[in-house]
């Protein structure tokens, strides 16, 4: 599998050089591998996220006014390390404490936990919110728990807006938690992405197979299913979400591409989602259609549904200026 890279080892540093050159409003610490805002707002709660790379624009693409203060990108599909998360936390700290938004994977959770301990040693107050919105995985004592996926973007946007607004750490954390509780996601893959170091697709699907409930690292979810028209695939995903937390009222929908699906297909998938939601009496009050949390060049979609409140809408609509999300400024 050909990749547009210099070598598997160089993927992250090369990309970080590119991010630094492309976005003058960001500061990129190449040594520690941290993307942060070039300017800090004294007294503002810092919002930090991070995780394995390969999900771009998540998280580095969400650093900027109204959203994250810093992001710690790990190796491809591998969580960042504590020192790196500490450096991101320090870059985000402006005296009012720092929120860690952590996707629920054992590696991320453990590395962020160690980083939080290190940060406390440096007198930075840290609160962590773990996102786990992927309904494909049964949340039970028999698994590592649900995975954090697309809902994380909403948590980052809402928490970032609240922090920008001057909310305190407790409030910002409360909002991120609330978003997570109100968000559910489900993904289906048509074919696997390729990790540069592996050099071949992470799993193999036959011409008539799809991976139902796939994770953002190509982890399997529920089952291999039969390939079907997009209307049915989207219906399956929304049924799964609805069964877990009934969908009603005003919702935010993210029709997300996994990196290798053409935008024209995502719009078609979004049309089907809107039809399904209309049929279930829900209203798509806000939406994103595009590649927002990817799995390298994996083909497929994920859909995230967040049940909105007036407060969440207000924070969602608040100005944001990051490489990947930008409005109101």
């Amino acid at each position: 599998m050909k990749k547009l890279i210099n070598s598997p080892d160089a993927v992250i540093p090369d990309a970080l050089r590119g991010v630094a050159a492309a976005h003058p409003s960001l500061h990129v610490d190449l040594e520690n591998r941290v993307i942060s805002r070039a300017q800090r707002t004294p007294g503002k709660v810092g919002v930090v996220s991070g995780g394995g790379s390969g999900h771009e624009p998540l998280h580095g693409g969400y650093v900027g006014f109204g959203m994250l203060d810093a992001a710690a990108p790990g190796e491809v599909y591998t969580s960042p390390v504590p020192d790196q998360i500490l450096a991101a936390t320090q870059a985000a700290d402006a005296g009012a404490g720092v929120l860690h938004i952590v996707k629920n994977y054992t590696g991320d959770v453990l590395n962020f936990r160690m980083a939080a301990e290190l940060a406390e040693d440096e007198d930075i107050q840290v609160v962590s919110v773990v996102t786990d919105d992927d309904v494909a995985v049964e949340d039970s004592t028999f698994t590592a728990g649900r995975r954090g996926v697309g809902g994380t973007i909403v948590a980052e946007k809402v928490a970032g807006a609240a922090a920008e607004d001057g909310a305190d750490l407790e409030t910002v954390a409360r909002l991120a938690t609330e978003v997570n509780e109100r968000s559910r996601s489900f993904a289906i893959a048509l074919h696997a992405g390729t990790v540069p170091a592996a050099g071949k697709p992470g799993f193999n699907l036959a011409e008539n197979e799809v991976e139902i409930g796939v994770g953002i690292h190509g982890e399997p979810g529920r089952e291999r299913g039969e390939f079907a028209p997009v209307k049915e695939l989207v219906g399956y995903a929304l049924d799964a979400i609805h069964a877990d937390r009934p969908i009603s009222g005003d919702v935010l929908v993210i029709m997300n591409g996994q990196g290798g699906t053409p935008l024209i297909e995502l719009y078609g998938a979004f049309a089907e989602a809107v039809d399904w939601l209309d049929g279930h009496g829900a209203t798509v009050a806000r939406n994103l259609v595009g590649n927002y949390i990817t799995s390298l060049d994996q083909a497929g979609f994920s859909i995230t549904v967040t049940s909105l409140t007036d407060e969440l809408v207000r924070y969602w609509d608040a100005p944001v200026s990051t490489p990947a999300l930008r409005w109101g400024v």
Partner: protein
Amino acid sequence: MDTATTIAWITRAAELVRADESRLTALDAAIGDGDHGANLARGLAAAVTAMGEKEPESPGKALIAAGRGLVAKTGGASGPLYGTGFRRAGKELGDGGDVGQVGAALEAMLRGIEELGGATQGDKTIIDALAPAVVAFQEAAGNGSDLHAAAEAAADAADAGLAATVPLQARKGRASYLGPRSVGHEDPGAASTALILRALADVTAP
């Protein structure tokens, strides 16, 4: 167990993992995300570097440095787990000592990993290789074995523990997402634990 042997242990573990990197990665690709080989090879290389940076004063300090290197560079689930495990072992080992004290250090390693990760035996993780290895080591030590013989016993028990992960359904880590589909594969973390214990046996050979 002296400082030189301790350093040799981690160095040998790094060698064994590097040599088997692709096997570990393949195991992780089957039930995880296919990075365990790369993660741990990177992490143990960093552990070796960390021990080399300033001549450790004691076996304990060597292991603590190795643990810090692992935490700093591995990433993933295994980095904090092994890193914490080696740091705990180092604290227990202190200025080193006899086979009994090494056994206590290995037990501290096990407890550290259990506490941080919350896994117990049967969850299809590192614990499934490490727990029986600690038991075997301590039993051998209790029966008067020397360090090498105890380490051999531990390594053999880890291998057996690894083999016993095959029929298990994972309840922790990424493999747990697979549910019943995780059955039928060796756990990558248990496999790397077996290598780490084999390394101890190797470097303590007379």
